[in-house]
């Protein structure tokens, strides 16, 4: 028995195989976000990592108050993406650890020349996760990662929150690595990511205000703001174009079922007493799109039916009677028409300008008509721009917010 116990004791160290892979937290540099750019020269990949500065990231804000940043940005070059990661070790005192990364930013040059070489490593390396957000920028990834937020100490956390919120608010469809890869592997080999930009919003707004005021305003100069509002389209692992804010919102209807969003349009009641126009804003609470391909006489057409539940959040049209079912029906019809126009606009852009199926028609055709798909799949690039489509939308207004009718105002501005 004693012999056995001694033998067990002797064997215990061999069972503790974790010893080889032990990683002390104080010797790790946790990457929160990383970006990849393409640069000229022998080592074409530039990797930029945003690392939480250990002393400040845990709430010990002494350094932040003293002017130190809560994050550190480091860069390294390499022949390949993995080579750049490896080279990062030569200047980091701590082991650079990617498992806690939240997002990946792809630089414009890299996106335009092709991202195929980095995708393999992103899938193969055990430290990268498929749930990381993926973004593209129209600048360099390094610039984006070096830029901070005023309300958030760690920028990657701020961007993560923007992306999480944006789906709910219907502003843009955030894309994680997994969805990005799956779409690239899909039938049309077209995928997309949100576009992150540095925009000088404050300067734009100040100049508009100066125009109104007619004099220069006394306002302090503020840094540019990180903004995520547009979408970048990739085809065969290469960036081919971008969608503006409205098109990005419309894209959500075609590739997902939006859970939030806004429709704003100008409205004048048909039987209006005074015929005045005003803006109406609807908040979409639940949207659903059904895309059905139809095949007849060797021609393919696509039927798109959108249904949305909405509530009125602003009705500035004067004299509008929201309690009147006829008026509500008109509001709904006009909202549906606005939505339809937005969807037609993006499909037209995909067909005529981008010439790539970012709206996912190929997947729908493949799933519903697999035999017909086999006939057209080799020529899909030529066929897609010629496909006819029909969009029909239905918007149902379910509530009118905290009030129903706005009280009409008299000419002097007072309430009648």
């Amino acid at each position, binding site marked *: 028995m004693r012999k056995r116990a001694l033998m067990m004791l002797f064997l215990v160290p061999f069972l503790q195989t974790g010893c080889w892979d032990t990683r002390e937290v104080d010797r790790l540099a946790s990457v929160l976000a990383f970006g990849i750019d393409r640069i000229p020269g022998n080592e074409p990949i530039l990797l930029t990592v945003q690392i939480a500065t250990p002393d400040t990231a845990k709430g010990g804000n002494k350094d932040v108050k003293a002017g130190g940043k809560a994050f550190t940005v480091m860069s390294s070059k390499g022949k390949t993406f993995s080579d750049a990661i490896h080279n990062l070790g030569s200047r980091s005192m701590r082991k650079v650890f990617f498992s806690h990364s939240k997002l990946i930013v792809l630089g414009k040059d890299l996106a335009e020349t092709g991202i195929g070489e980095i995708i393999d490593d992103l899938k193969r390396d055990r430290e990268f996760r498929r749930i990381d957000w993926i973004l593209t920028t129209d600048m360099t990834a390094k610039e984006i990662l070096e830029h901070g937020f005023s309300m958030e100490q760690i920028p990657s956390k701020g961007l993560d929150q923007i992306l999480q919120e944006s789906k709910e608010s219907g502003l843009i469809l955030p894309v994680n690595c997994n969805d990005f890869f*799956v779409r690239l*592997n899909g039938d049309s080999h077209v995928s997309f990511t949100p576009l992150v930009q540095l925009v000088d919003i404050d300067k734009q707004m100040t100049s508009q205000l100066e125009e109104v005021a007619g004099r220069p305003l006394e306002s302090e100069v503020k840094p540019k703001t990180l903004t995520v509002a547009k979408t970048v389209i990739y085809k065969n692992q290469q960036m081919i174009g971008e969608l503006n804010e409205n098109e990005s919102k419309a894209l959500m209807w075609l590739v997902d079922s939006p859970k939030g969003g806004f429709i704003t349009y100008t409205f004048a009641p048909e039987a209006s007493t005074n015929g005045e126009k005003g803006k109406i804003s609807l908040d979409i609470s639940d949207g659903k799109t059904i895309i059905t391909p139809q095949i007849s006489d060797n021609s393919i057409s696509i039927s798109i039916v959108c249904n949305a539940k909405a509530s009125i959040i602003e009705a500035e049209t004067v004299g509008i009677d929201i309690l009147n079912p006829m008026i509500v029906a008109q509001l709904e019809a006009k909202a549906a028409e606005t939505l339809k126009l937005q969807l037609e606009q993006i499909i037209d852009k995909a067909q005529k300008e981008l010439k790539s199926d970012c709206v996912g028609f190929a997947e729908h055709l493949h*799933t519903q008509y697999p035999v017909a798909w086999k006939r057209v799949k080799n020529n899909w690039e030529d066929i897609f721009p010629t496909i006819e489509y029909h969009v029909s939308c239905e918007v149902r207004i379910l509530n009118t917010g905290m009030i129903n009718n706005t009280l009409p105002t008299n000419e002097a501005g007072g309430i009648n």
Partner: protein
Amino acid sequence: MPEKGIINTSQCIWLLFIVIASIASMQIPSILILQAGRDAWLSVLGAWFLDVMLAIVYAYMGIRFPGENFVQYSITILGKYLGRMVGILFPLFFLLVCTIVIKGLGQVINTAFLPRTPIDVILISCFFVSALIGRKGIEVIARMTQILGPLYFLSIVTLCFLVIPSAHIIRLKPQFDEGVAPFIIGTPLILVFFGVCILMAMYIPLTNRPENGFLAKFSAVSMGAIVVGLITTFSVVCFGIEDAQTMYSPGLQLSRLIHYSNYLERVEMLFLLILVGSSIVASSSLLWAFGLGIAQLTGLKSYQPLIYPGALISLVLCIVSFPSSLQHSNFIHYTYPIVAIFVQTGLELVLFAAALILHKRGTV
């Protein structure tokens, strides 16, 4: 009989289930998706049906030769020499499966969790624990599985449900895109992995109710098919067939997809728990079956002295035969199915036919 232990039907069910769970957590789902594409889940259903059919034969043979496992009744049917030649194939097959299971486990741990740890150390640790359990006999293994089995079943089902937000059912369509051929090829491919449940023939003589053998296998294979089917289906709906077929362990990748806001994520350690537990218990029962089979063929009084040598042979096979994960994957994909279908289905059906033709029966 070298094994004196007695198990009940529920223990028998969990013993068999654990063997299938260990398969589901490794690279088998990706191999199946590579062959059967989007129809992989149908192949799992097909294999479940065929395996239940096969279970009827095994259960019938268990009743026809009461108190005998297939090593023993191959001697009864085919005689002293030919019977032993056929009989030895079963224990050797179990040793081969044990090698595959532990190598697969070691490879996943080495690739995804402990990259700097030499794989040999992981393998030695696994074999040591497996042999230790296997040497304690069937009752110890059975009691372990009775606790771990339900835990694993619920964990895998829960893992799959948690991954639903990342799943898109459209990725499962269209079915039969390439005709029925992928489904037909996929069915026997996954059947050979379910077929490891021929271990039931080793358990039936030791159960307190041998007539429940079919019920045990039916329940175990049904639960196993649910687990393999869920992992396969969710791999397709989450990653699409193009990515899922290239993954080393799709189940592990699924667990890495789980994230609910910022509070529930990185649950792959739970998957590692299932992986290590199920693989070690499965390999311990395979080592036990190997030891018992050889002991019965050679007429030894006890199988226990054979467990450690068996584990050692298996370890050497792991290191020598599969120096890299590539050889292991290729073996599982191309060679193992041929060997397995021969042993699991071919040999048993030959014995079944021989027993009927030669009018052989066991003695009570």
